[in-house]
């Protein structure tokens, strides 16, 4: 049975070696992102300060996951696992925060 599955499919995800040029580009993007987030924190944008900081942090995290952690070049199983994991994570955090932020908890 396993012989049948040992088709070309198995070799679809032939180990991909990411070129160092991509790593250098990602490093530069991460450094620029760090500079940007520090700079943005000194400007008073009211409620948008945390939103911008988190948006930049999420962008940096996505770059690290996709390129440094090779998810962009990984098997569909890995992509699905990582995607499902982060989705569950966001559901857990999002639902909890939605509850806390929309009730008068702790305001006594």
């Amino acid at each position, binding site marked *: 049975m396993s012989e049948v599955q040992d088709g070309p499919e198995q070799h679809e995800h*032939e*180990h991909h070696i990411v070129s160092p040029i991509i790593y250098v580009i990602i490093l530069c993007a991460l450094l620029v992102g760090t500079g940007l987030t520090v700079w943005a*924190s000194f400007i008073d944008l009211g409620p948008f300060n945390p939103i911008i900081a988190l948006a930049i942090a999420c962008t940096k995290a996505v770059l*690290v996951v996709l390129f440094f952690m090779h998810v962009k070049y990984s*098997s569909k199983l890995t992509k699905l696992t990582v995607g499902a994991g982060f989705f569950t994570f966001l559901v857990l955090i999002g639902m909890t*925060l939605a509850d806390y932020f929309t009730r008068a908890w702790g305001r006594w």
Partner: protein
Amino acid sequence: MSDSTAIAHGTAEAHHEHPPYQRHHFETIAQQNDATNFAMWLFLLTEIMFFGGLFTAYLIYRNWYYPAFVAASHQLDIFWGSLNTLLLITSSFTMAMGVWCAELRKKSGLVLCLVLTFILGLGFLGVKTVEYREKWEKHHIPGLHYSVSSFVDPASDPEVHDKYPKDQPLALDMARHTELYFFLYFAMTGMHAVHMIIGIAILAFMIAKAQAGAYTTGHVTFVENFGLYWHFVDIVWIFLFPLLYLISRH
């Protein structure tokens, strides 16, 4: 699917040519790599959930005691935080380069990258020590070395006040809530630092093994999966830095 075919298949497998690092319960080396990669990601996802709890607690308390959290976050030095971000991002880069060197079987390159990652990791912990030391001096460590009066009246300790003259006095209820900020600060950065210490210990082990030529024979799984761990620790810091240091600054 009869037993006899399974046995025949198993015997055929035993004589099958494969690299020495391929475990016998895997059909191909690609399958082994996929399985270990998958397992590493499952582990990292549990880690993400674990840190997620701390991040959620931080966001809830920040929402409740907003002025106290703003005042407390002004106690952190953006310079040290930014420096640590640079160190950690660069160490992630050197680690990624290390994996690349292992894949191309460049032994000296791999050792160099691992040593650089090791040094940058130690640098990160060194900066963290400087920051924690300041918190100790100012009595800002909840449960161990904490004093509300250091916030209500910073001048009460003249020695510390001379060193940090910019600290403004806070109202008592606000000063008490800064304790929550610092509790979460130490829980989050402390847990992150524990992960760094574990990572640095594994790096030391890997440097010794790499010098003996362990990861440059085509079997890069260990270096690759450690790289995933190291990048994960980097990602945690990418979120800790803005949340703890930056978002209440302006």
